[in-house]
C-alpha cells in the first residue's frame, strides 16, 4: 500500500484483509436476517430518520462496521513500534479501568462491566484481550525463551491471570475464560507440552467424573495403574511413589468434582454444565437456549431455508440470536453448506494468521500473532460449540459475526494491530 507511511516497508497482508471483510460482510447479512422482522414493511425504511433506524440492530451494525473501518485507518496510521513501546502502559491503564468499572458501571444483565459514554456502551473486558496480548508478547520478547527462569514464568502467569481475575470479579466469567487461549500461544513459544496434556487429561477426567459413576472410574483408573506398572515394570518400578501419587490425584479429582460442582460454581454455571451433559433436562428453562439453538441449526438441512426464510430465527425462538447465538441464523438459513463456509472462513483466517505470525522476525510479533489466533480460535470453539450443544453456554461472541460494537472493534483492533506489525516487520533476524 503506497499511501501508507514510509515506516511500512511491506504491503499490508491483503489475504487477511479480504478474509476479514468477507467475514464482516457475511456476519452482517446474518445479523440482518436475525434482526429482520417480517412485519416491518421494507419500503417504509427510507422514510425513517437516523434515530429511528438506530432501533434496528442491522442498521446499528452498519454503523459499527463503518466505525470499525475508521478504526482500522487509525490503527494503521499509528507507528507499529508504539504497540511494543506502549504495551505495559496500556496494560496498566486497562487494569485500572477493570478495577474501577464495577464501581461506576450500571448493572446490565447481571454484570457491572459496561461503561457508557453517551450513546456508546463499551466493555473494557473486550479490550483487555488485545492489551494483554500486547503486554505478554512484549514480556516474552524481553526474556530468553530458551532459558526461562521460574521468575519469568511467574511474571508471565501473573500478567495473564490478573485481567481475568478482575473480569470474574465483575461477573463476566465468559470473557475471563477467553484468557485460557493464551496457553496455546505460550505453547508455541516454548511452554512444555506436558502442561497442555495435563490440562487436557484433567478436563477429560472432570467430564468422565460427571458422566460415569464414580465407582467405575475408581476401578478403571486402578486397573489402568496396574496395567501400566505391569507393562513397564522395569522403568516404572523406580517411580512407584510418583505413579501412586498421580493415581491419588486423579481419584481425588474424580471425587472432588462434586465439591467443585456444588460449592464453587454458581447456580447458573452449574446448570449450564448440567445441560451439556443432559440436554433434555429442563428444555423450557435453562435448556431453552441450547434446545432452541440446536432446533434452529438442525432444521437448516443441507442447504438451509434461504436468506430471511429461517422460521426459528424470524419468530424469535432463539434468544440472543444476533449476538451470542448468531451461528443459529447461519445454520438455519444457509444449512450445512453455509456452516461449512463459515467454518472454512475461520480456518482460513486462523491459518493465515498463523502464517503471518510465523513470518515475523521478532518474538513480539510472532507471539502477538499467536495470541490473536488463539483468542479468535477460543471464541470460535466455545461459541459454535455452545450453539450445537458441545460446549457449555458461555456468553462470548462469534468474532466478526456477532452483532455488537464492542466485540467488533475489539477483534478488529486485535487483528489489525497484527497486520500493522506485520507490514512493518524487519528483514533482518532479531534474537529469538
Amino acid at each position, binding site marked *: 500500500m503506497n499511501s501508507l507511511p514510509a515506516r511500512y516497508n511491506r504491503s499490508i497482508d491483503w489475504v487477511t484483509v479480504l478474509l476479514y471483510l468477507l467475514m464482516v460482510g457475511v456476519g452482517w447479512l446474518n445479523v440482518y436476517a436475525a434482526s429482520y422482522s*417480517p*412485519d416491518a414493511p421494507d419500503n417504509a425504511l427510507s422514510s425513517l430518520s437516523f434515530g429511528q433506524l438506530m432501533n434496528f440492530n442491522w442498521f446499528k451494525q452498519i454503523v459499527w462496521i463503518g466505525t470499525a473501518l475508521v478504526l482500522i485507518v487509525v490503527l494503521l496510521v499509528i507507528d507499529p513500534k508504539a504497540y511494543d513501546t506502549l504495551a505495559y502502559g496500556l496494560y496498566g491503564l486497562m487494569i485500572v479501568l477493570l478495577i474501577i468499572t464495577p464501581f461506576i458501571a450500571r448493572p446490565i444483565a447481571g454484570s457491572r462491566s459496561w461503561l457508557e459514554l453517551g450513546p456508546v456502551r463499551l466493555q473494557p473486558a473486550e479490550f483487555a484481550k488485545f492489551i494483554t496480548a500486547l503486554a505478554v508478547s512484549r514480556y516474552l520478547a524481553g526474556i530468553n*525463551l*530458551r532459558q526461562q527462569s521460574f521468575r519469568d514464568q511467574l511474571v508471565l502467569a501473573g500478567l495473564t491471570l490478573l485481567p481475568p481475575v478482575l473480569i470474574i470479579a465483575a461477573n463476566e466469567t465468559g470473557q475471563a475464560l477467553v484468557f485460557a487461549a493464551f496457553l*496455546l500461544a505460550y*505453547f*508455541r*513459544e*516454548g511452554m512444555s*507440552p506436558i502442561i497442555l496434556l495435563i490440562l487436557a487429561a484433567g478436563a477429560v477426567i472432570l467430564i468422565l467424573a460427571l458422566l460415569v459413576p464414580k465407582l467405575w472410574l475408581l476401578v478403571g483408573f486402578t486397573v489402568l495403574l496396574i496395567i501400566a506398572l505391569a507393562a513397564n515394570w522395569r522403568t516404572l518400578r523406580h517411580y512407584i511413589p510418583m505413579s501412586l501419587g498421580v493415581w491419588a490425584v486423579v481419584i481425588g479429582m474424580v471425587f472432588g468434582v462434586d465439591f467443585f460442582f456444588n460449592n464453587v460454581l454458581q447456580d447458573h454455571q452449574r446448570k449450564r454444565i448440567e445441560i451439556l451433559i443432559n440436554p433434555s433436562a429442563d428444555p423450557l428453562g435453562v435448556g431453552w437456549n441450547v434446545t*432452541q439453538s*440446536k*432446533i*434452529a*441449526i*438442525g*432444521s*437448516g*438441512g*443441507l442447504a438451509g431455508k434461504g436468506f430471511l426464510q429461517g*422460521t*426459528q430465527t*424470524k*419468530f*424469535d*425462538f432463539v434468544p440472543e440470536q444476533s449476538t451470542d447465538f448468531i451461528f443459529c441464523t447461519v*445454520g438455519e438459513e444457509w*444449512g*450445512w453448506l453455509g*456452516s*461449512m463456509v463459515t*467454518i472454512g472462513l*475461520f*480456518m482460513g483466517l*486462523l*491459518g493465515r494468521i*498463523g502464517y503471518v505470525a*510465523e513470518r515475523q522476525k521478532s*518474538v513480539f510479533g*510472532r507471539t502477538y500473532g*499467536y495470541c490473536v*489466533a488463539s483468542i479468535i*480460535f477460543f471464541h*470460535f*470453539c466455545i461459541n*459454535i*460449540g455452545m450453539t*450445537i450443544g*458441545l460446549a457449555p453456554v458461555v456468553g462470548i461472541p462469534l468474532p466478526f459475526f456477532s452483532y455488537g460494537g464492542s466485540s467488533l472493534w475489539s477483534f478488529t483492533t486485535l487483528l489489525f494491530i497484527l497486520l500493522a506489525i506485520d507490514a512493518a516487520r524487519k528483514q533482518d533476524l532479531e534474537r*529469538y
Partner: protein
Amino acid sequence: MQYLEGRKYVVQAIFLAVALVFATRLFYIQVLDGSYKLAADRNTLQRIVQTPYRGLIYDRKGQILVQNTPVYDLMVVPREVKQLDTLRFSQLLQLPLEEVREGLQQARKFSRVKASPLVQNLSTQELAAIQDNLIDFPGFSVKARMARSYNTHTMAHALGYVGSITPKLLERPQYSKYQPGEFLGITGLESYYEDQLMGRRGVQYRMVNVRGIEKGAFRDGEYDTLSVAGQDLHLSLDSELQAYAEKLMAGKRGSVVALDPKTGEILAFVSAPMFDPEMLSGKGMGNRYMELLNNPEQPLFNRPLMATYPPGSTFKLINELVALQAGVVTPNTPFACNFKLVRCTHRHEPPSNVGIAIKQSCNPYFYQVMRATVLRGRSSNRFEDARLGLGEWRRQVMKFGLGEKLGVDMGQEKKGLIPSPEFYDKHNGYHRWTYRTVYSLSIGQGELGITGLQMANVMATIANRGWYYTPHFVRGIGSGGPLPEYQVKHTVGVEAQHFDAILPGMVSVVDGNGGTGNNASLADVGISVAGKTGTVQNPHGDDHATFAAFAPAQDPQIAIVVFIENAGFGGNSAAPLAALVIEKHLRGKIAPWRHRWEEWLPGPADRFIKRRRY
C-alpha cells in the same frame, strides 16, 4: 528454521481437529437427524381447528328440538393481566371472589401466554352486562362459540347432552382428532351420532412466533381445509306424544317405550324420573350435573335401555309362541289351573284354551306350557332332558331379540339375561337341576332380565306376526334415510299362524269380560287393543307394574310397553297409562271420559297399590 517452528503444526492440528468435530456434528444434526426439522415445525406451526356447525335435531313432525346458539367464553391471558382489582372484577362477573382467584390460578398453571377460559357459557345477556366494562381489565377477552340449546323440555335421555371432552377420552385413539376443551356428545343420540352431527373440522396452519402470536398463513394456505357442517338428525320421536307420556309418568320411576311396529321407529321413549335437557347445557352445567348424579331417584339412569327386570306375565306370550312353534301344544290344549304346581294370580274359570289362559294370566297353565316345551324326553336322564330342553327353549327365545343387545342407535344398552343351561349348571351344579328348578321362567319371573326396549320390540314382533325392524330413534340423517342396519327385517322363527292363535287372548285381556287389562280398553272409541298385564315380583319392595300392548289389534300402528316401579298390579296403573298413550297417538286426542285418568295417573306410584293381587 525458526525457534520451535514445528509446533505450528501442532497448533494447526488442534484448529483443524475442532473444525472437523464441528463439521461432523453439524452434518449429523443438520443433514442426518430429521428430528430437529420436526421440532422446528412444532415450534412455529400452529394448527387452528375450526369446529364445524353441529347438526340440528328435529322430531318426527319436523319440529326443531336441538339447535345451536352462540355462547361466550371469557378468556384470560395471564401474562397480560395488569394490576387486577379482583374484588371489582368478581363483582362485575357476579362470581364469588374465591372462584375468580382459583380460575386465574388455573389459567396461570395452564399457560402464562396462551388464552384459557375463565368463565364458560356466558349467554348474550350476561355478556352484554360485562362487555362494556371489560376494557378496564387488560388480558381478558371474549370468545364466541356455538353451544346447544333446546326447544323442548322433554326426552333428555334420548337426546343426551354435549359437554367438553374429558382428558381420559382424549387419550383414546378414536378421539385423537379432538382438542382439549372441545365439545362432543356425551350420552344419548348426541353421542351415538357424534360423527354425523360433528361434521368435518376445518384445519388452518398458521405460523406463530415464540410468543404464540400469529404471523400469517403457512405456505399461503396450501394445506388448509374448510370445515363441513354436521348433518341434521330427523328423529322418529313424536315430541307431542313424548311430552304426554312424560306428563303421565311424572312422580314415578319406570319407563315407557312406544314403537311403530311396521318400521321399528321409536315414537316415545320415557325414562322416569325425567329432567329438562336444558339442565345439561350452559353456565353452571357442571353443578347441575352433579345434582342429577347425586339424586337418589337416579334421573340420569336411562331406564328403558339399562334397567333390566324380570318381565312378569307379559313373558307368558313368548312361552306360548315357543311352545306352539315347537308343536308341543295347540291353541286348544287345556291345562288345569293346578295350584300345586304354582300359585295362580287369582281364582278364575278353567283355562280350557290359550285364550282364557292369557286373559286370566293363569300361572299353572303356562307352567305346563313351558314344561311341555322343555321336557320332551330327548334324554332318558331327566336332568339331561331339562338341560337340552332349556337350551333349545333359550335359542328360540333369544331370536326375539332378548338376552342380547338389540342394537338400538344409542349406547348404554344392556343385554338383559335369558338364563342358559350353563347358568344353572354353575349355580346348582351339573345335572343337579330339573324343570322344577327353572319353572319361574314360565311366568316371566326368576332370573330373567329384560329391558323396556326389548319388551316393546317383542310386542312389535307379535303385532307384525313374526318379524321386526331393530328399534331406532333416527329415521333420517341429513337428507338421507336411517342407517342401513335399521332397514333389515329380522324374523324370529315363529310362524305367523301361531301369532294369530294368541291374538284373541290378548284382545280379551283388554276387552274381554274380567280380563286383567280391562283398564286399557279403548273399545269405546272403536280401537281394539291387544295387550298383556304383568306384575313383577320384587323381593326388595312393592311389585313392579307392567303392561305391554299394541293397537289397533288388526292393523297395529303402535306397540307399547309401560313399566312402573313399585306400582303393584300391572292392570291398575300401567294398563290405563298405556291406553292413554295409544289413544293419543292413534286419535290425537283423549275421550272426555278418560280425562280423569289424565288427572289421576301423574304422581307417585304407591297410590296404585290398593291391595296385593297375584
